[in-house]
């Protein structure tokens, strides 16, 4: 049996630090919002022309008075991702860019994807994203409350909060872009991490009923060990699926799968080291469970 409980304190300190650092990053550094949430225009273009590279694309576009322009390579070496503010929300800007590029480099461009999000829509999307994440946390809280006791609910929600905040913190420090699919990833992480926590909690509850003489400190450790191989196997298969999306699923799904990969790792960690330690600190005992059983 692995003694997970030996490191409860150390990992609690680490997690608290991680949360504080992440929150600080979110507040002071902020997130790198994509056009979905910031508004602006994105163009994915492909050109096989040998003379074209990021810097001269940037030069040509920079002269066009588009506001903040960013040009990046995207996936293979023929594809570029151009983003700019498009403050005035000009509708013909795409056509103008096409003309300008053709003039500078010859008619070599294939506009593979164009996205243009106005300021009103982007703020609505951001709001509904935040609402969606908040609702999902609240719904999970209520669900666990119904299925377990409030101590469990609290533990699960702290674990979830940890996963969401630390994943976003990692996105902040790595300056990775937050777009609509990241919101989907975060919600899936919430579901996954919950899933993981619930399986261990289910076992904790079962063991609490079984043993009246084992302290919660020891009992959580037993439960973690009993469910450990399942935790690991499920994490591994999920990670295998996610890694295959990350490496083979194309550029568009990269951010999404990366967020999910972080989330699965944090989720697995938090259901062991956060969800359980909360039960220990709240001194959950057989009585907690029995009280609830009597009520039912």
């Amino acid at each position, binding site marked *: 049996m692995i003694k997970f409980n030996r490191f409860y304190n150390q990992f609690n300190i680490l997690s608290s630090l991680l949360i504080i650092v992440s929150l600080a990053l979110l507040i002071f550094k902020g997130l790198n919002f994509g056009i979905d949430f910031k508004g602006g225009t994105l163009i*994915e273009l492909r050109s096989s022309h040998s003379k074209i590279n990021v810097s001269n694309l940037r030069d040509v576009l920079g002269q066009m008075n588009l506001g903040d322009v960013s040009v990046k390579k995207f996936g293979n070496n023929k594809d570029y991702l151009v983003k700019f503010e498009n403050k005035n*929300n000009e*509708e013909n800007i*795409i*056509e103008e860019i096409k003309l300008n590029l053709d003039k500078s480099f010859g008619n070599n461009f294939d*506009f*593979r*994807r*164009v*996205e*243009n*999000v*106005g300021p*009103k*829509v982007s703020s609505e*999307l951001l709001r*509904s*994203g935040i*609402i*969606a994440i908040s*609702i*999902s946390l609240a*719904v*999970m809280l209520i*669900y666990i409350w119904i299925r377990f006791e409030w101590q469990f609910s609290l533990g699960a929600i702290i674990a979830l909060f940890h996963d969401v905040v630390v994943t976003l913190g990692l996105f902040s420090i790595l300056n990775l872009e937050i777009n*609509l*699919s990241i*919101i*989907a990833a975060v*919600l*899936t992480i*919430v*579901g*996954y991490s*919950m*899933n*993981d926590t*619930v*399986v261990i909690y*289910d076992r904790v509850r079962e063991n609490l009923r079984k043993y009246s003489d084992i302290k919660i400190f020891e009992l959580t450790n037993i439960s973690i060990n009993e*469910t450990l*191989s*399942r935790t690991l*196997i*499920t994490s591994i*298969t*999920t990670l*295998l*699926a*996610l890694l*295959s*999306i990350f*490496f*083979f*699923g*194309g550029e*568009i*799904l990269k951010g*999404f*799968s990366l967020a999910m990969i972080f989330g699965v790792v944090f989720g697995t960690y938090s259901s062991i080291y956060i969800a359980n330690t909360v039960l220990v600190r709240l001194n959950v005992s057989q009585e907690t469970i029995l009280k609830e059983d009597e009520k039912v």
Partner: protein
Amino acid sequence: MLYFSKLRIIFISLITIFFTFVASNNVLSPDKRFFDKKINLGLDLQGGSYLLLEIDNTPVVEQRLQNTTTLLRAYFKDKNIRIGNLKLDNQKIKFSVAEDSKKNIIEILNDENSEINPYYPRFKTHQFDVVDLGNFLELSFSNQGLVELKTSSQDQALEIVRRRIDEIGTNEPSILKRGNDRILVELPGLDDPMRIKSLLGKTANLSFRFVSTDNQDSFGVEKLKYENNIDEDYVSKRIILSGDNLLDAQPRMDNQTNETVVSFALDRVGAKRFGKATSTGIGKKLAIVLDGKIISAPVIRDTIASGNGQISGGFTFQSATDLALLLRSGALPAPLNIIEERTVGPDLGQDSINAGLFALIIGFLLVITFMFVKYKTFGLITNITLIVNLLLLLGILTLFEATLTLPGIAGIILTVGMAVDANVLIFERIKEESRNEKNNIIAFDSGYVKSKTAILDANITTLLAAVILFFMGSGPIKGFSVTLGVGIFTTLFSVYFIARLFTSIYVSKNKDKVGLI
């Protein structure tokens, strides 16, 4: 838990065969299909354009208030009630009232069956809110009044947008209302929305008006620019003809000038008015004004009584075609702004499909290899379950003609990764049980029973996340929540019916084998 009745086995087989059959519909050529259902590809996979249009209702509000102002003046004059200083200011109608008639006026405006301030019988609130400002009364649209105005302008705009898009003739467009001032247009297969965008961006308000030579006119004049944005002319505010009077408009080549023009035919009322105007106005310039800009202002040389005419203005064939199209489909009630656009070219869509499918195959192979190495026979059972699971998932998506997006494919891959969870929970539990229980059947049975709550709880939490995503997410993300959500049901079915069936067959054949799992 391990016992299966014959009936249940038949039932399970039928369901599996049925959905496999349905799923096969997506790969068969159209003439071999058994029925006409297929998974739709989202715009991000098949390529196409997504446009969200917002109606700018400000001019409509202004126009309505203007009309109401005229109505109010006439109405109170009719009733011999004096009101003064009637004016429109900041989307509010203001007028002064005498102290003795104020009560009466407010009563008229707030009467349940008021003609001038309607809606009460239907909505229990009036079209306009009346505010008493002492010597003045102020009328502004009530919430319901504004909603009605927006809905009706949205209905009209939707109709015009549909006509314009139908005229261009794209593939299966979808045009839907969003909220009460937005219209969502989805155009599959369209990779360059330039033309549609420019067509939808025009209000197409056409009017024929005289150019004023002395800047004087009983209706007032306004200064308008020509299309080239340089020249200007003073144009009378009196509208001789508007786009409503048009029956037809077509691009044409003028044989005499060798110029592309738009020829039009007027309805009877229009023809009459046009005839009168051209007969009295010989020698004058008649401005053809579209959306506040003068297209051209030819000099009237002859009376045109036939109701047919043509507009010239240095058109190319394309611009003449577009103008004719706009005139035929009618004017929008208010300007539309494109507030969100997402366009994916068909080759990027195809690349996404290829990448998505490749990732699915690799992910699937990795997971089934891992499961086989880890659990041997039971890994094999899990893997068969996984295949059935995928077929069921595809079958259900086909049956409901769901839209598959790139994130949707990611959802399927994720389902593959997470679907084994339930089986793993069961197998691990059985392992534990068989440490104390030598009878395999009992050990397996209690493994299934004891893992049930954890499996249900775990899946319900993921389902909750998927449901929230479905209601809050947009476009492609919705596709993700659909596959993730449906995946949970197919997973539970395949774990509790398919995998359990195979497990029970295998276990009953190896009742006494030690270390079965």
